[in-house]
């Protein structure tokens, strides 16, 4: 298409050019060229971040390597798949994974639907206080969560285990499949709650009242009216949960590995970094491909479901007062049950973590222990050799990842919404593929990449972790920005364009300022998650690029120094909580 210049064009790159500068079409062409160059660089960068790991993963799954690196083996074969399917290990890992995922899904669904219904549709007291409490696990990185549960419910001296043994005579062991299921279920509640609660909230009570006037009792109303209306939101939330549970590594690793209970994600990590012997990359890749396939199917179903959510949207412009069902005499007992859940499920593990971090050795919470509380463990953390380097590494990784992921996400989302160049929409869509890549797999795919092609030479540096984390958070980040873009009225950008302002000026003066709250949110969200992201850092770590979360993992699993590990976990938890609190401080909580 030929470019025609009508109005006077400012010199390329000038922000405030002198008025009425005489124009030449060259300026426009040069700007076009620069714009295209930026687009090209971004396309290559995203392709590199997204597609290369995928290709490497597929490639190495077809390489019959056991102890060698995949690219040291000639030819392609299905040997890996044959070996995986023939091994007895595969059946037991699959069974564990199915039990783990389905079990935790049921726990999360029951808890989040129940809480959402109680908070949004009933007159349960203290809603203002209970609903943020129910969401508070969001601020806890999953690694910290798993460690806290290991401390609170371990059969030897966990306060919860001890309490149950003494009062009810029950002996519980967190290092078991049921333990993993409960922890994953509780961990999944906030994100599910955030998807289901709005469905309850925006349901017009008239729909329910209409059924009530016909004479349908509450039970039947719930089944025939309420449940079908929130079904799309529930099933979408369930799909997403399955993907997260499948790829989640910290909980199966911390609670499952001590008793050799493997699920897919921990099995992959076990192949890549076995405690003894050499890594088996072929097997790891094959498990990775299988896991990826399941996740992608789930994501496809999820996308269909979320389209249904729009179909079922029963929002009306007219304001209505959401009528709340009366709980009657059950009001107080239910309130007590919810409080008990919040205390045991969320409060107690975190309290135990803090308690342990302040204790000289692992011991149950007791009044007598207060006298001997100590900050020595925090002292140990900061006295460790090379802690300075670790903190610096962590800061670099987290800050750079948050900034780069936000910037690239914004670019993808804006390009896709404007259809800036052919295929921009497609680029946005393929970035969501990464969401289906379990982070263990993403980690070692990137590891292979830099062992295979050491350009740029970032192997063993913090940069390799940054690359992997940016790739990991691109899909979420770009979706957060896209959601914000959809809420910006087209008229706002169009009226800036028709004044004759350059696209870059419009972006700088109108679009980005309007997006600012979402940019901030995305940045903080990535920041908090990058801080607690264990598997990528673990797979890519070496002596030179250790981060806090790897330090935590090593302290907890290898040295067994639980008080120091707790102190580290509390530090990570504190930083992450501040970031999450900032994300949610202004405005409503959003699906994240």
């Amino acid at each position, binding site marked *: 298409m030929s470019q*025609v210049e009508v109005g006077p064009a400012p010199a390329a790159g000038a922000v405030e050019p002198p008025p*009425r500068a005489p124009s030449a079409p060259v300026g426009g062409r040069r700007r076009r060229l620069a714009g295209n160059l930026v687009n090209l660089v971004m396309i290559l960068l995203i392709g590199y971040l997204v597609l290369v790991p995928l290709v490497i993963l597929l490639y190495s799954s077809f390489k019959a390597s056991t102890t060698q690196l995949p690219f040291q083996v000639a030819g392609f074969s299905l040997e890996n798949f044959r070996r995986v399917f023939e091994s007895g290990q595969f059946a037991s890992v699959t069974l564990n994974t199915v039990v783990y995922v389905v079990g935790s899904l049921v726990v999360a669904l029951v808890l989040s639907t129940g809480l959402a219904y109680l908070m949004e549709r009933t007159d349960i007291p203290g809603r203002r206080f209970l609903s943020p409490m129910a969401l508070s696990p969001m601020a806890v990185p999953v690694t910290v969560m798993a460690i806290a549960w290991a401390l609170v419910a371990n059969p030897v001296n966990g306060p919860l285990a001890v309490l149950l043994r003494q009062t009810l005579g029950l002996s519980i062991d967190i290092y078991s499949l049921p333990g993993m299921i409960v922890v994953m279920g509780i961990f999944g509640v906030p994100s599910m709650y955030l998807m289901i609660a709005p469905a309850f909230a925006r349901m017009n009570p008239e729909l329910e009242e209409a059924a009530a006037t016909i004479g349908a009792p509450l039970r039947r109303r719930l089944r025939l009216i309420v449940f079908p209306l929130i079904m799309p939101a529930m099933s979408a939330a369930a799909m997403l949960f399955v993907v997260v549970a499948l790829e989640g590594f910290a909980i199966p690793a911390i609670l499952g590995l001590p008793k050799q209970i493997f699920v897919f994600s921990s099995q992959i990590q076990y192949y890549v970094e076995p405690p003894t012997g050499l890594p088996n990359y072929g097997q790891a890749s094959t498990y990775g491909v299988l896991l990826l396939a399941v996740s992608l199917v789930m994501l496809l179903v999820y996308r269909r479901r979320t389209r249904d959510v729009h179909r079922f949207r029963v929002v009306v412009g007219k304001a209505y007062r959401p009528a709340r069902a009366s709980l009657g005499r059950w009001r107080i007992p239910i309130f007590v049950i919810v409080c008990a859940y919040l205390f045991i499920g969320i409060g107690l593990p975190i309290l135990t973590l803090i308690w342990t971090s302040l204790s000289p050795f692992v011991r149950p919470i007791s009044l007598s222990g207060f006298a001997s509380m100590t900050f020595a463990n925090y002292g140990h953390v900061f006295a460790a050799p090379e802690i300075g380097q670790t903190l610096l590494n962590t800061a670099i990784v987290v800050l750079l990842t948050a900034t780069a992921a936000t910037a690239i996400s914004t670019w993808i989302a804006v390009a896709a919404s404007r259809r800036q160049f052919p295929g921009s929409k497609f680029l946005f869509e393929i970035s969501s593929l990464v969401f289906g890549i379990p982070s263990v797999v993403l980690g070692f795919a990137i590891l292979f990449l830099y062992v295979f092609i050491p350009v740029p030479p970032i192997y063993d540096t913090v940069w390799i972790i940054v690359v992997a984390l940016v790739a990991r958070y691109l899909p979420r980040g770009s979706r957060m920005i896209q959601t914000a873009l959809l809420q910006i009225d087209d008229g*706002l950008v169009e009226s800036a*364009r*028709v*004044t004759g302002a350059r696209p870059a000026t419009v972006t700088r003066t109108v679009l980005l300022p309007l997006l600012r709250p979402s940019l901030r949110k995305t940045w903080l969200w990535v920041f908090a998650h990058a801080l607690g992201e264990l598997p990528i850092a673990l797979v890519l770590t070496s002596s030179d690029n250790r981060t806090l979360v790897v330090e935590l993992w090593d302290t907890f699993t290898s040295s067994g120094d639980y008080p120091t590990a707790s102190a580290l976990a509390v530090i990570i938890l504190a930083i992450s909580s501040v970031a999450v609190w900032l994300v949610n401080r202004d405005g409503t909580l959003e699906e994240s």
Partner: protein
Amino acid sequence: MNNAVVAPETTESIVVSRLRKSYERAPGSGATYAIDDVSFEVPKGQFVTLLGPSGCGKTTTLRCVAGLEQAQEGRIDMAGQVVFDAAGNRNVRPEDRPIAMVPQSYGIWPHMKVIDNAAFPLRYGRNRRRVKDVRGRSMQMLEQVGLSAMADRWATQLSGGQQQRLAFARALLCEPEVLLLDEPLSNLDAKLRAQLRQELRSFQEQFGVTALYVTHDQAEALALSDLVVVMNQGRIEQIDTPQRVYDHPRSAFVADFIGSANLFAVEHVSRQDGGVLVKTGIGAVLCGNSTAELDPSGGFVCVRPENVRVRAARGDLPVLGDNQFLGTVVSSEFLGDRLEVVVRIGDVSLTAVARADFACGPGQDIEVTLDPATTSYLAR
């Protein structure tokens, strides 16, 4: 306008010719067009309205003129320059067209002060001013739309009507050749709408700017425009002055869409002195107005309710003259200043407007007169 290329003297600000756009990827023979073969002109300094029901393609046409969307066929000239030509593969980007726009939602930027909103075109637009002139010029314009007292408030603190004025001020500061307005009054309540409608027209006249206005509200179109372009299903039905569109609709759609109209089917048509004689369900009707060509297979008779004269039937067998018919009252509705009577003649129902004190009741016989001067024949 200080265009790079000097525009030849022209009296048309916009010439749209044979514009066609489909939202389908590859429009085949059976494609549906959002706008289909649309041609019209906007004379300099005039107020032209695109009027039609929702989905008729009026907003798409406006957005094509703005350059925010691109048609597949046709050509758009603006101030003597080709800004879009599908055949010549030429498309000037919106930022390079001499336009300004007031979108339906006003597009007032919430993160800026009122003055910054207004000054945006002077700072970043195609007609940039020196930094020291910007504030003065913007204040001057805000003064003219009555917003100078609010200049340093946040734009979100303005009421709907004030936001609309601000959007208008900002658009005028672009010094456009053409001002494009996309249903700018539709988000206001009825009373404010009527007030701002008048303001809008007086601003437009005061600044002598050419305006292309999109609305689905016929009252707005009739009140504001120099020319009305009536659109339906992507096609133009009629381009005329408001009076002519109302009095001499060229199609049944226009007659029905603008104001209310009695339309009834025609069985046979022939030319006669003083008009067209048609055979209809109520008998032979002489129509003083007619579309240029006759449709031998039928068409419609169109008469506005206020032009249907009714009179109580006198005697058992009243003598009926030409264009006089005997009917039965089906219903009558008292509307304060007038009475709306529905009359049945044969199989045809006619609505007539009578004086408020006209006494009639259902079942009563009534004499109906259609004046040839206000009765039109419309080919199908």
